[in-house]
């Protein structure tokens, strides 16, 4: 909401500086987003508001009068003005088309009042797009010297208008600094959804009056002529009071729509509206001033439609498929939740949103029927959003306008119409008010104020604060009974009303004055949160293992995920997804099912930026559940590893590439560090992985997820280099649930171990894990460590064979192991390997 300061001052005295004013309003919930100076000087004090705009130099920009408009000797599109600026008479050059009608008429009988800028004045350049500051300099235009100018609105920063110059109202005093005559500032105030009552000059003034203690005042109405009574000239029929609680009509006859006085046009522009003509401008002016949107009908059109009889205005829901051409010229197809203003001949306007084309006020209109009504906010909101029609009226009605405003707004508007357009205002109004609301009465005790705000206020203090906002208050003992004033709908009943009042009290008392405490209420029982703790531990472990954490979009598309999910070979049917009804783009149209697909995209994007790619993410995937509206959201862990094992350095130029065992090692270390019980990694196959380089991580019999090298055909779908891409995706929910809250450790051995190496030759097909498991079984408790340190293939051991070399540690907890004992264990191990695997010892 744009609030011109001059207008606000008509309703309440303001003795604050602009920054002080903005601060008070902001701290009361009327956030001043920006202040635009339209003539007034820039405040000198330090402040924290965005203040822009133009200050008019009082010596250089003044009111002047044009006494004669003369042709330019060398240019048809320029004129010379004889102008008096209060000091002297001079000749000023201009190309303003709105002076051309006066060209060559000799001395004007009624001089034109204009805004005149002398040499050196700081102005906006009227010929450049946007607002560019410039200083008025002496030049020669087509042989005529020019050192000053008459200004357009754009040059003074009032609006974008720069076609013609400003013609001021006749009462403008010649020679007066323009800033004193009409210098202004516009406050851009963000109106909160529950403060629509402040979306008017009166509304802001009322809040300001409550804040500063200055009285609220109503500017006097202009004098106007009265006509015959409205009685019998129009009737109202409301079919559903829930949709239309009140409808008021007023009548003015004999108007002549014309341009409004300049000060009215300027105010409308400063407030962000375009002046149309004096009749339409009056409706907008009063809406901005009082907050009640009004609508003007051409009365004669209604008479004609009613066959010459007085019209009956009927409000009702639209019928399915009914049509209306709104005054923007668009034919609208309506729905039953949209409310119509009709007459006996059919629809006239879309209630609370926009008028119809047929009955709109034109230059030819002579008699005006003026509507001030109240509409159901939900219906207005739905209709405006379905028709994509936003208007100042819809904005206000959709948030709730109190029905008590209507008659006053109609009366005030008719007075301005008469003052600006001529005509006689018919005596009285037609007022249909089938459903007056009961303004709530709220009881609030001192104890309740204390319980909500933590500050002790006496009943009288509370009542005083509320009275400033026009609540009618009674204090009974420790309880305040407050009646909501008849201009606001945001205060509820019962406990909600209490909360609403508490907010008003806190706002006026000042949030900054409230004390600062920590809760004295008992602390709830604190819970153990092992899953959350394990999750953070997992992050730390993975970071420590050299992986970069990433967080990716949860929104993706089936096509993006198919790059990973579709098997290397064979058919692929995309799975069921949580789909968006209104995606911003096709590539963000579903909720992801694969976390790894997202992390692979990250690796791919970074492939050219880093020789070593090592990423992980812990996050949810979204799996639709048959027969249920809401999906399952299990947590996943995804890892991607590719490129060099470690970054090259000055003395290690070509590090080896990471392979399956780097990834496996990370998962092993992770499982160990988190103390995952009975974990093991076993060969397995997965459709998108290399069939010979893939495995599954288990804890006991529970499968936690897969790991492996991406299948070459799958990898070809991505833009990766030649290095293998290693991936893993684990069920993080399951993994974290297995992390024990406590675990036990072994004592440090006291007696020395016996350490020896053995190498066994087995068939190529025998998995190393099986060899180790047999060694461990046979070795028993005394075998405390088995470490594979070499795998060898070669002629010496024969084709189809491999040699596995182990470093074994034997140790007893209670004595020093003898060589004989160690030899016994070794023999047992060798025997078992020979028997089970046909292995032989390699000497």
């Amino acid at each position, binding site marked *: 909401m744009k609030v011109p300061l001059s207008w606000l001052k008509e309703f309440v005295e303001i003795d604050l500086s602009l920054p002080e004013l903005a601060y008070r309003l*902001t*701290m009361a*919930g009327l*956030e001043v987003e920006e202040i635009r100076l339209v003539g007034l000087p820039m405040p000198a004090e330090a402040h*924290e508001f*965005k203040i822009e705009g133009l200050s008019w130099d009082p010596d250089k920009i003044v009111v002047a009068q044009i006494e004669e408009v003369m042709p330019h000797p060398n240019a048809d599109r320029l004129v010379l003005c004889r102008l008096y600026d209060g000091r002297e008479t001079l000749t000023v050059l201009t190309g303003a088309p709105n002076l051309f009608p006066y060209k060559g008429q000799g001395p004007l009988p009624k001089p034109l009042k204009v805004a005149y800028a002398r040499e050196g004045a700081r102005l906006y350049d009227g010929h450049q797009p946007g607002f560019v500051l410039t200083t008025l300099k002496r030049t020669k235009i087509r042989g005529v010297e020019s050192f000053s100018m008459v200004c357009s609105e754009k040059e003074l920063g009032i609006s974008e208008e720069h076609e013609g110059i400003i013609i001021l109202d006749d009462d403008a005093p010649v020679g007066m600094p323009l800033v004193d005559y009409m210098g202004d500032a516009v406050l851009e105030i963000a109106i*909160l*959804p529950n*403060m629509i009552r402040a979306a008017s000059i009166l509304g802001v003034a009322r809040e300001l009056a409550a804040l500063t203690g200055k009285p609220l005042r109503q500017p006097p109405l202009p004098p106007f002529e009265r006509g015959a009574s409205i009685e019998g000239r129009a009737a109202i029929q409301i079919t559903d009071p829930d949709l239309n609680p009140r409808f008021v009509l007023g009548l003015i006859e004999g108007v002549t729509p014309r341009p409004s006085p300049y000060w009215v046009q300027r105010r409308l522009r400063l407030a962000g509206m375009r002046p149309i003509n004096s009749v339409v401008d009056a409706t907008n002016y009063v809406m901005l001033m009082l907050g009640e949107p009004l609508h003007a009908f051409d009365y004669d059109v209604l008479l004609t439609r009613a066959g010459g009889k007085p019209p009956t205005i009927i409000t009702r829901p639209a019928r399915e498929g009914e049509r209306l051409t709104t005054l923007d010229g668009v034919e609208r197809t309506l729905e039953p939740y949209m409310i119509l203003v009709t007459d006996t001949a059919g629809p006239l306007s879309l209630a609370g949103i926009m008028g119809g084309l047929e009955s709109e006020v034109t230059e030819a209109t002579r008699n005006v029927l003026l509507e001030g009504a109240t509409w159901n906010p*939900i219906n207005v*909101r739905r209709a405006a959003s379905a028709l994509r029609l936003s208007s100042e009226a819809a904005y206000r009605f959709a948030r709730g306008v109190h029905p008590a405003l209507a008659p006053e707004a109609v009366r005030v508007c008719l007075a301005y119409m008469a003052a600006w357009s001529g005509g006689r205002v018919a005596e009285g109004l037609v007022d249909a008010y089938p459903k007056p609301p009961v303004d709530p009465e709220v009881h609030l005790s001192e104890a309740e104020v204390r319980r*909500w*705000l*933590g*500050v002790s206020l006496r009943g009288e203090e509370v009542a005083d604060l509320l009275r400033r906002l026009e609540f009618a208050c009674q204090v009974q003992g420790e309880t305040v009974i407050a009646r909501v004033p008849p201009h606001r709908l945001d205060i509820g009943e019962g*406990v*909600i009303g209490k909360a609403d009042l508490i*907010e008003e009290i*806190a*706002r006026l008392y000042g*949030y*900054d004055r*409230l004390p*600062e*405490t*920590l*809760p004295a*209420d*008992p*602390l*709830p029982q*604190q819970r153990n949160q092992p899953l*959350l703790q394990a999750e953070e531990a997992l*992050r730390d472990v*993975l*970071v*420590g293992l*050299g*992986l*970069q*954490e990433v*967080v*990716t979009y*949860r929104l993706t598309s089936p096509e993006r995920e198919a790059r990973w999910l579709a098997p290397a070979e064979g058919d692929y049917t995309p799975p069921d997804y*949580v*789909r*968006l*009804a*209104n995606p*911003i783009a096709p590539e*963000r149209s579903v909720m992801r099912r694969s976390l790894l697909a997202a992390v692979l995209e990250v690796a791919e994007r970074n492939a050219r*930026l*880093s020789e070593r790619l*090592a990423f992980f993410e812990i996050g949810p995937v979204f799996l639709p559940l048959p027969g249920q*509206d*809401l999906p399952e*959201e299990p947590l996943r862990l995804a890892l991607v590893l590719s490129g060099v094992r470690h970054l090259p*350095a*000055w*003395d290690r130029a070509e590090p080896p590439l990471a392979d399956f065992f780097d990834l496996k090692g990370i998962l092993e270390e992770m499982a160990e560090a988190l103390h995952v019980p009975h974990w093991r990694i076993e060969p397995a196959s997965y459709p998108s992985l290399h069939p010979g380089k893939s495995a599954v991580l288990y804890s006991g019999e529970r499968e936690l997820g897969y790991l492996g090298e991406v299948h070459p055909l799958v990898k070809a779908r991505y833009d990766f280099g030649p290095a293998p891409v290693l991936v893993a995706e684990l069920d993080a929910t399951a993994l974290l649930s297995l992390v024990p809250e406590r675990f036990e450790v072994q004592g440090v051995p006291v007696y020395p171990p016996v350490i020896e190496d053995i190498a066994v030759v087995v068939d190529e097909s025998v998995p190393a894990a099986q060899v180790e498991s047999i060694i461990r079984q046979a070795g028993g408790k005394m075998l405390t460590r088995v470490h594979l340190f070499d795998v060898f293939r070669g002629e010496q051991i024969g084709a189809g064979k491999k040699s596995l070399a182990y470093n074994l540690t034997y140790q007893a907890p209670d004595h020093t192991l003898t060589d004989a004992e160690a030899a016994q264990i070794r023999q047992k191990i060798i025997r078992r390997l020979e028997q089970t695997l046909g292995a032989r010892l390699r000497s």
Partner: protein
Amino acid sequence: MDDVLEINELDALQARALQELEAVNDEAALQAWRVAHLGRNAPLMQIFSRLGQLPKEVRPQVGQRANQVKQALEAALEERAAALRAAALRRALESERLDVTLPGRRPELGRLHPTTRTLRRIVHIFAEMGFQVYRSREVESDAYNFELLNMPAHHPARDLWDTFYTTTSGVLLRTHTSPGQIHVMRERAPQPIRVILPGMCYRYEQISARSEIQFNQVEVLAVGRNITFSDLKGTLNTFARRLFGEQARTRLRPSYFPFTEPSAEMDVECFVCGGKGCTVCKGSGWLEILGCGMVHPTVLQNGGYDPEEFGGFAAGMGVERITMLLHRIEDIRYFWANDVRFLSQF
């Protein structure tokens, strides 16, 4: 004169040995010298072996002198050896000198995502005030995201959130973590509550440097019989001072949220310019960091708490926004782009 003769020989022996020692410059020469002057066949040793043949009267005198010479030579040997060791060490150290300005060999260490870092700080600060993490789902029902939070269908406040809807009617991507308020209240009523609710939220927006379609929010919720607006103020100011520094000034500005009343926005004095106004705070000197307020009676009711008996406060903040302020990040798109050149800086 015999005695004089032996003594004289010892004196000459000592002088010659010490003189030769001065020329010794390495370990081998030192060993040779030791053999020559202190070895079994050294002249000094021969004097010792001849001692018995000397007359009784001179024997003590010559013996004493021979011992003196032996000690002197041994001491000189030790001193020389030490000097040689020291010189050798010096040479070795000199030859091993590195160019320590060459880069170090860095172990590969990953980094946490910036969002995780900020989230942890926030969670930690609130944990010390007794607020524990509570998580809830991201794909939500309209009821939990809007209706139960005092926003029935067509409520104008719904305009504050641009929402992603799913193709299942009544199911959407949560626009804030507030649905978790209802979940946790329904789970715990009538017990008091102090939780924070972190998590990903979604908004239907065009992606730009300033806005993203997904963002992390942390919501704070306290419910009890005696929770006041002053408690809200104290708790959030404590939080702000711990996150932005002890000297951080804050202010509460009235605002509107459908699920709180009274509602406020909390601003912290711009720590980039100290409140003087800069591009980060857009000239205002203040940075908006969170929205907050007293839990609306309707929300308490929907959560299973009698609003005549219970009160509460709630606050919500954007994790990426706070991260951007803390690290002067100018483009929110960096967060989900996951460019290593960005991530590796944390």
